[in-house]
């Protein structure tokens, strides 16, 4: 699917914000469906079947989290959250509800469009299936369980492979701490954030050119991690 033909649902109560979102998205070639409240948003999501939804959390009738939960019951479409709540807590709630990424208000349109492209690309890729991940000089083949860096073999532990796999499933997007811990170590370890700190350090030491300034295993402080692969 060509990205530029994608349909985007915008659920946002503020008319001014909707207006600039729609003109910016329209200028990029996206088809835009607008909803001014949660109820309308849920209906539009079901009738228009958009490729991606942008959902504001502070809606007049219901919390935007309800819209996200509603969509997640029947669709895996990427959901991008707009939030004026800058505290990480609200973002974590949105991830728990099923959001894929977030942008904090006020935001520049460039940032929003970049996140949107990543989410749409991810959607396009997840249907085509796995290829080896290119991370700078490192290549990780999850199926063959092999990793190399600058041509030479790198040893990764089974948990390290699982961690990369979990991040790669959502490549380019944020994966919350809780989700990573749950998927890699199991539901009883969802609070053991220190596991992640230790393993992310190991992965960066093994795969990043400069572990202090990672270009692929990106920290979203207080929220989770994001894997950025080269195209």
């Amino acid at each position, binding site marked *: 699917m060509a990205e530029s033909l994608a349909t985007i649902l915008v659920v946002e109560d503020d008319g001014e914000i909707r207006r600039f979102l729609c003109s910016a998205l329209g200028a990029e070639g996206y088809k835009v469906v607008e909803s001014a409240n949660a109820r309308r948003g849920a209906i539009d999501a079901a009738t228009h079947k958009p490729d991606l939804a942008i959902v504001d959390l502070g809606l007049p009738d219901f919390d935007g989290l309800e819209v996200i939960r509603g969509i997640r019951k029947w669709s895996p479409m990427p959901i991008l959250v707009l939030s004026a709540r800058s505290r990480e807590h609200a973002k974590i709630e949105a991830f728990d509800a099923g959001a894929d990424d977030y942008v904090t208000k*006020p935001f520049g349109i460039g940032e929003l469009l970049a996140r949107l492209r990543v989410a749409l690309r991810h959607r396009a890729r997840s249907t085509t299936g796995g290829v080896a991940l290119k991370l700078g000089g490192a290549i990780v083949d999850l199926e063959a369980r092999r990793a190399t860096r600058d041509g030479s073999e790198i040893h990764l532990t*089974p948990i390290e492979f699982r961690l990369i796999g979990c991040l790669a499933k959502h490549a380019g997007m944020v994966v919350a701490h809780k989700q990573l811990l749950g998927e890699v170590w199991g539901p009883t*370890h969802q609070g053991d*954030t*220190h596991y992640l700190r230790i393993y*992310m*350090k190991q992965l960066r030491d093994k795969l990043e050119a400069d572990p202090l300034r990672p270009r692929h295993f990106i*920290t979203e*402080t*207080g929220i989770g991690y994001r894997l950025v692969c080269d195209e």
Partner: protein
Amino acid sequence: MDNRRPLFGYFWAVAAAVLGTLIGLAMTPRFDIVNIAMVYLLAVVVVALRFSRGAAILSAVLCVAAFDFMFVPPQGVFTINDVQYLLTFAIMLAVALVISGLLDKGRSEAGARAALAIEAETERIRSALLASISHDLRTPLSVLTGASSTLAEGGDRLDPQQRIALARSIYGQAQHLSDQVDKVLQMTRLEAGAIALDRDWASLVEIAGSVLNRLSDRLSGHRLIVEIPSDLPLLRVDAPLIEQVLGNLLDNAARHTPPGTVVVLRAEHLANEVIVSVEDCGPGLDERDMDRLFAKFNRGASEATGGGAGLGLAICRAIVTLHGGRMSAEPNPGGGLVFRFTLPVEQAPRPPVEAEEA
């Protein structure tokens, strides 16, 4: 003056009466009975000066009773033959009431003066806040109004480059405005104790990496040296807040020192804390500015624009203090400034054990 312990005052009222009586007994029969009355009066005055009005009245009543019983004829009974002693009693009671009354007035006046002083200080901070906010908000708002109205009303007569330049300055000022509002809100919440730390295990290397990533444009003109040992222990902190502190210090260093100079970010583990420092090689500050560095609404004298309401460092210090750490600034021996903060190290939980596959 011991208003908070009234029972103590009553105890001394009784003790004063007893003491007065003992002294009075020692004075008889060499002294006239009037002088003994003076001893009792002294006891009442002392109690009235030191303790509450209630204790003063009690001591007056007790002294009068003791004086009457022990010394005024007929002794050993509470009856009085000479009416003039009634006057003595009245005077003792009056002295007790007058003195404690005067003291009460003095005490409440002192309280009122203290309240006035607090109010004046609050007023001073409020007006500093207002002055600072109105300056910091008005400048970007003027740019926003001017640039956007130019675009809206005459945009079609401008060439594309001019339009883009105007739009860019709107964007920049709006971001600046947003930062200011965030800072004022955060400082208010910090002061109101409304920020609860969301502590979790975090890696300082990661936090630093995230900050350096975010500030890479801002820091690109400086020579940045990072010295963080890779075996630094994990810290139990509110990572986004610590990221904010680190970001603020590095941003300040980049903004207030000439391009091309060195900025050093260092961390070390000493005893039960981690010490993080940001050193710059800029012009530094004179002693007076040094003292006011962490004060709210302070902006360096030379700093005409973009000071961020002078709240940044006050916020940083409040965040570090909330974590149980300390934050300080001192001149860098080689010129410039060193900002340093500490974070307590807690015993980290055991790391996961992974059984290696063959």
